[in-house]
């Protein structure tokens, strides 16, 4: 068997088809570039492949999906924290690595929470002395956030005007959906406590937009939307790219490494066809890695040559370093006021209609950075785990059986709310991934070994989340479920990677000694190599990162298009 080398030289090869890859593909094909996109998983389109409107009772497991479908058997995302034949290892601390393996990647998984970073989020070191500032500012990204809002379609409101919080920039929004009953009840309590509750910002259409119909409010965005009324790379970014006739998608193509010429420039990407196990090399004048933060770092570290013995774009040694995830924990509460509530269809959009942006003043708190709160509750579709642990429910009979128990299950349905905190980890050099010297995946590609721990900054933030969520539940007249975990359990903080917001492993910066990429996400060492995923992030924020991945990818793609026009690339 020989390596199959593509005779054609593409203008651009993009590795990955998710938020970053899809955005770059659209911008560059529309700018006239001939683009090839490699995707490690199969083709998939929610218009034909989603399980929308299936009932849990149509599944013999009632929706339970096992290890390979951690978010349920009907979840739209193919992949998970454990993938057969694709191991990773952990050195120091703990880490879990969720990978999407399908066209569109993890845009099928995410909650469509579409939050711009604010001005402060690009200059945290200047504010609190920790981590580093970005080489760009909010003003550099604002035009791209605006274009995203307009092109993709997103509902929301002007939070800064409603709350006075200066780090919550405005955007271009469709009207938000009316709040659900439990969300209004949470807001009522939070209003008394001085905690702002505002309409969420989700990339789900509440009005028809660019040929896509408005949401039909089944609450099943996570299964993939059969009408393309929410955002995924496949439903929004790839169709216009394909319509140019200049995008070639190669599915089931697992990238092995970036190939390099004698001049030190990238010449393309080698990959394995996961169906035939045939090795291929695709050639391109420009390579854009959008394989996800850690996967892009892995590709660079595995692209070793005599010219680049530490891996590609890694003369600084920072590739893999400064790896972060969002902090995260959840608290559930039983709310007596919600018991015996008349039933209504509370499905709504596939996410919260109200949420809580970060409101704290760090000068008055014992920790830096912040978090936002995602709200849950309502009458969900009954499925696997329904009524679990009823013997522990507050004000219940404490277990039992028979007619009285049956009635109790009915009364507790819809009587719970949940609060999920998602916050900023301060980036540190000693949180990192590297190539494990001993382990390869089933294609022979060396795998990542992770080192990740939380610091006191994150632990104290988690403590604040716990205390706040419990206080809100009590203010609502309810009872938190479960005791508050103590410092020995990191106050309930999820292990790194569980929140699926990895960022920073291929960070950008102005100094080639301390960063891998310049301010255009272009490798300092290899000028025809770019990264367009969470990798370039210098820091996280108290806001989820996908909207910033896409704005940054859009900006990177426009820079590439401009350089091509100028003949510089």
């Amino acid at each position, binding site marked *: 068997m020989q390596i199959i080398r593509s005779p054609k030289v593409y203008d651009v090869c993009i590795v990955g088809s998710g938020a970053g890859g899809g955005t770059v593909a659209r911008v560059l094909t529309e700018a006239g570039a001939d683009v090839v996109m490699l995707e490690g998983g199969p083709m998939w389109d929610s218009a034909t*492949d989603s399980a929308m409107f299936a009932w849990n009772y149509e599944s013999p497991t009632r929706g339970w999906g096992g*290890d390979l479908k951690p978010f349920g058997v009907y979840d739209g995302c193919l992949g998970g924290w454990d993938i057969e034949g694709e191991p990773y290892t952990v050195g120091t601390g703990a880490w879990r690595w969720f990978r999407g393996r399908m066209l569109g990647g993890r845009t099928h998984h995410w909650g469509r929470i579409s939050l711009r970073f604010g001005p402060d989020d690009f200059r945290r070191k200047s504010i609190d002395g920790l981590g580093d500032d970005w080489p760009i500012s909010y003003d550099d990204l604002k035009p791209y956030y605006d274009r995203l809002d307009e092109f993709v379609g997103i509902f929301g409101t002007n939070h800064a005007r409603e709350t006075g919080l200066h780090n919550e920039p405005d955007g271009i929004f469709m009207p938000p959906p*009316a709040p659900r009953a439990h969300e209004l009840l949470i807001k009522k309590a939070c209003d008394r406590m001085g905690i702002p509750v505002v309409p969420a910002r989700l990339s789900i259409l509440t009005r028809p937009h660019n040929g896509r119909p408005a949401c039909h409010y089944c609450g*099943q965005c996570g299964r993939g939307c059969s009408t393309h009324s929410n955002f995924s790379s496949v439903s929004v970014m790839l169709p216009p790219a394909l319509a140019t006739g200049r995008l070639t998608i190669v599915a089931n193509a697992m990238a092995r490494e970036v190939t390099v010429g004698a001049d030190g420039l990238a010449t393309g990407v080698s990959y394995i066809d996961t169906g035939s196990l045939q090795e291929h090399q695709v050639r391109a004048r420009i390579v854009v890695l959008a394989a996800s933060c850690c996967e892009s770092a892995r590709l660079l570290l595995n692209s070793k040559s005599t010219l680049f013995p530490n891996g590609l774009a890694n003369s600084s040694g920072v590739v893999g370093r400064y790896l972060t995830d969002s902090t995260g924990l959840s608290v559930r509460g039983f709310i007596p006021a919600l018991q015996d509530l008349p039933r209504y269809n509370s499905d709504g959009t596939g996410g919260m209609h109200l949420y809580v942006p970060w409101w704290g003043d760090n000068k008055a708190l014992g920790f830096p950075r912040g978090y936002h709160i995602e709200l849950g509750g309502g009458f969900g579709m*009954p499925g696997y785990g329904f009524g679990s642990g009823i013997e522990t429910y507050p004000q219940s009979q404490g*277990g039992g059986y*028979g*007619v009285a128990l049956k009635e109790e299950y009915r009364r507790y349905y819809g009587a719970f709310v949940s609060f999920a905190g998602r916050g900023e980890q301060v980036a540190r050099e000693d949180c990192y991934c590297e190539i494990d010297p001993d382990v390869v995946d089933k294609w022979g590609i060396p795998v990542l070994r992770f080192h990740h721990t939380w610091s006191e900054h994150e632990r104290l933030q988690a403590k604040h989340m716990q205390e706040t969520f419990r206080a809100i539940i009590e203010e609502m007249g309810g009872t938190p479920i479960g005791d508050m975990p103590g410092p020995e359990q990191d106050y309930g903080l999820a292990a790194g990677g569980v929140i699926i917001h990895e960022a920073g492993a291929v960070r950008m910066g102005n100094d080639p000694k301390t960063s891998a990429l310049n301010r255009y996400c272009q490798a300092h060492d290899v000028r025809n190599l770019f990264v367009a995923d969470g990798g370039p992030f210098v820091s996280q924020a108290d806001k989820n990162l996908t909207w910033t991945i896409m704005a940054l990818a859009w900006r990177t793609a426009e820079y590439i298009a401009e350089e091509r026009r100028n003949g510089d690339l």
Partner: protein
Amino acid sequence: MSELSRRRMLKVLGTAPAAAAVSFQPGTVQAYLAERAQAAAATPYARRFFTEHEFATVMVLADMIIPRDDRSGSATDSGAHEFIDYIVAEQPERQTRIRGGLAWLDAECLRRFDRRFVDCADAERRQVLDDIAWPAKARPEMSHGVRFFSEMRDLVATGFWSSRMGVEDLGYMGNRPTTWEGPPREVLEKLGL
């Protein structure tokens, strides 16, 4: 991912033959749903984990936990016992706990009444369940029975409430395309909003 887990997952998705190297290819879920609906209509449920005696015990227990009332049928009317057999077969970590718990229940009934649980009179069964169904009130020596019964109660709850019968009983109104205007006035009024 172990080979076992992979096979388990393929079963969950309903792609049976080893020849079909399908895992998550497009259309898998739809094909599975159609196949499943067809299979369910055509054939009675085939036991996967429990022995005949164990299954009989599960059915009696399930209907004591969620009996028929004036609003809906019992756990076994909804097919909850079939779900329990299926999911315990899918989740090896439960198997010894559940099998052992059923054996514990029989041993306890034999000790008290010289009969297995299914052979006991209703009052005798209740006497044992009364000792294990309320964890906070149970005597310490009943701890193994308490653990088992709590897990069984959870399984019965999923089996019943996520069934078509359970969903209708609960009054879940979603899983359909609709317009959205927020909660109805009577809901907001009841909450004082």
